C-alpha cells in the first residue's frame, strides 16, 4: 500500500510536526517503503497469540483521531490561574541555561 501526501500531512498534524511539502513527499515515500516490510505481519497466527493481554484489545479504550476534547465538568477558565488562546499558561522550568521569563 502507498501512503499519500494527505495522510502524511494528517499524521504530521496529529504529531504536532510542522512539515514542508518537500519533506512530506519524502516522508510519504519513506513510510510507504518501510511499511511494505511490515506486510510479513499479516502471516501472524492470531489464534496462537490470542492469549496475549497486551494486544490493545483488553481494556484500552480507543478514540477517533479527530474531534473535540473530552468535556470537563467545569470549563478550564474556572480553575486556570491564567489562560491564553484556550490554553493554560504555566511557568517555564528553571532548569535551562538561558531561561525565558514567564509571560
Amino acid at each position: 500500500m502507498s501512503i499519500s501526501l494527505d495522510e502524511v500531512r494528517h499524521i504530521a498534524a496529529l504529531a504536532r510536526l510542522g512539515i514542508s511539502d518537500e519533506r512530506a513527499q519524502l516522508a510519504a515515500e519513506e513510510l510507504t517503503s518501510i511499511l511494505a516490510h511490515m506486510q510479513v505481519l499479516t502471516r501472524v497466527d492470531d489464534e496462537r497469540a490470542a492469549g496475549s493481554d497486551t494486544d490493545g484489545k483488553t481494556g484500552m479504550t480507543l478514540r477517533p483521531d479527530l474531534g473535540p476534547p473530552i468535556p470537563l465538568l467545569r470549563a478550564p477558565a474556572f480553575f486556570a490561574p491564567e489562560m491564553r488562546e484556550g490554553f493554560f499558561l504555566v511557568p517555564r522550568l528553571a532548569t535551562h541555561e538561558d531561561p525565558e521569563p514567564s509571560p
Partner: protein
Amino acid sequence: MTETGFGSHSPEGTVAEIRASVTAGRRSPRDIVDHSFARAAQVRAGADGLNAILWSDIAVAHNEAAALEPRLNGPDAPLLAGVPIVVKDNIATVGSPTTCGSRILAGYHSPFEATAVSRLRDAGAIAVGKTNLDEFAMGSSTEFSAFGRTKHPLDPRLVPGGSSGGSAAAVAAGITPAALGSETGGSVRQPAAFCGIVGVKPTYGRVSRYGLVAFASSLDQIGVFGAHVDDAAAVLQAIAGRDGLDATSSDAPVPDYGEYPPTLRGLVIGKPREYFPHQLDPRIADLCERALDRCRELGAAVREVSLPHTELAIPVYYIVAPAEASSNLARFDGVRYGLRVTDHGLRGMYEATRSSGFGPEVTRRILLGTYVLSAGYYDAYYAKAMRARTLIATDFDEVFRSGVDVLFTPTTPTTAFAAGSRTDPYQMYLSDIFTVTANLAGIPALSLPIGRIDGLPVGGQLLAPHFAEQRLLGVARLLEHSLGAEAHR
C-alpha cells in the same frame, strides 16, 4: 597508563585493579581522573576527533574525586572506588547537561539524577563525561546526533554502532574501563560488538529506568559497557535492583555477579538456526563456531534450536518502538523543555519547535509511530505487532523450558560499516536484526568480542532467561578467558 588508557589495552586499568590500587593508597582518585582526561585528550575524544564525549569538566571530576577520599579507608571501601565512568547523554545527571543528542534539548540541565547514576556515585565511581548518541537513542550508527557523528576508534571512516556509540567508543579507546548506555533494540550490544568490547542489556526491570529519558518505555533498559566481562559485571552489580522511583523495576534479589562457575559442565547452549541464515557472512559464522567449540571444551553441550518467529522481529520492533516514541516525545513541544521557536499562536509554536528541534530520524519515527496508532491502521499494525511480540517471547520461553540454559548467536550480521553508507532507513534498521528480540522478550543479553575480520571486531551474543544475568556473565567470562587474545585478532 596514559599512553594506552584503561581497559582492554592495559591489564592495570580494569575496574578491579583501579579499586585495589585506590583503596590501597597506591593511586588517588584524582590521579585516576587525570589519567582518564589525559587519555581523552590523547585520542581526541571531543568534537575535533572521535566526537565520543559531548561534555566533560575536569574541575567537577576533581571535586567528585576529593569527595570520595574519606570513603576509601577500611574493608568497606565501595565497589567501584575511584573508577572513572562515562554516561550516555540520555541519562539524567545533575551538574552537567542532558541533551539526548538533540537540538530540542540543547542546554537542558535535569533537576534530578537517574537512579543508576546515583548508585554509581554511591559505589564510588566518578562520572567524567557525557557521551554522544543517536538523537533520543534512535539509530544504529551514532550518525544521527545533532552534535555530529561519533567516529570508530579503529577507523574514523567507520561508525562505532549505535545508539550508544559515544560510550562504546570511549571504552574502546581506553578513556574509561566501563560506561553506561541504554538499550531499546540493541543500542549497547551492537556498538559493543562493533568496537570490540563487552555490552550487557539486563532483564527488563533489573535496572531502574528512573532518569532515563523515555524512548519506548516497554523496551528501554539502561545497559553497561565494559572493556572486560568483569568490568561490566561490577558496574551492573552497583546499579541493579529495585527502585521505588521506577514502578517497573523488579524486587527480585540481585545475586553476586562476581561469582562464576569453574567450568561449563552440565550447561546446555542453544544455537538458534534463524540467527545463522545462509546469507550470514561465513567469516562471522566461523568465528561463532570457534566460540561454540571453546564452550564445548569447557564442558557445555551445544544443541541446535529454533526460534520460529524471529523473522517478525524487525517489523514488530519498528512498529512498537516508534508507536511508544510518538507518545513519549509528545512532551517536547517548547513549553517546558529546551528549544522554543515562536510562530503563529500556541499550535504554531508547537509545530515550529518540534520540526526545528527534531532531526530526520526522530521525525521519521514519530510519523511512523503516529501512523500505526492512528484510526484505521491500529489493528493492522500496532495490535498485530503486539500479538507477534507475544509469539517472539513465547519462542524464548519454550526454548528455555526445553532445557536450554543460554543461547549463542552473532551479535550483528556485519562488522562496523562506513559512515554514510546506509541511506535507506530499513537497511539501517536491519543492523539490529539479531538484537531486537531480547528487548521484545525482556530477557537479558550480552555481547562479547569473539574475533576480528579484516581487523574489525566481531561480537558474539549470549541470551538467557529473565533475571539470569549471573549465568550469562559466568558463561561470558569463561569464554572470554578461553579465547584470550584471539578475541581481538
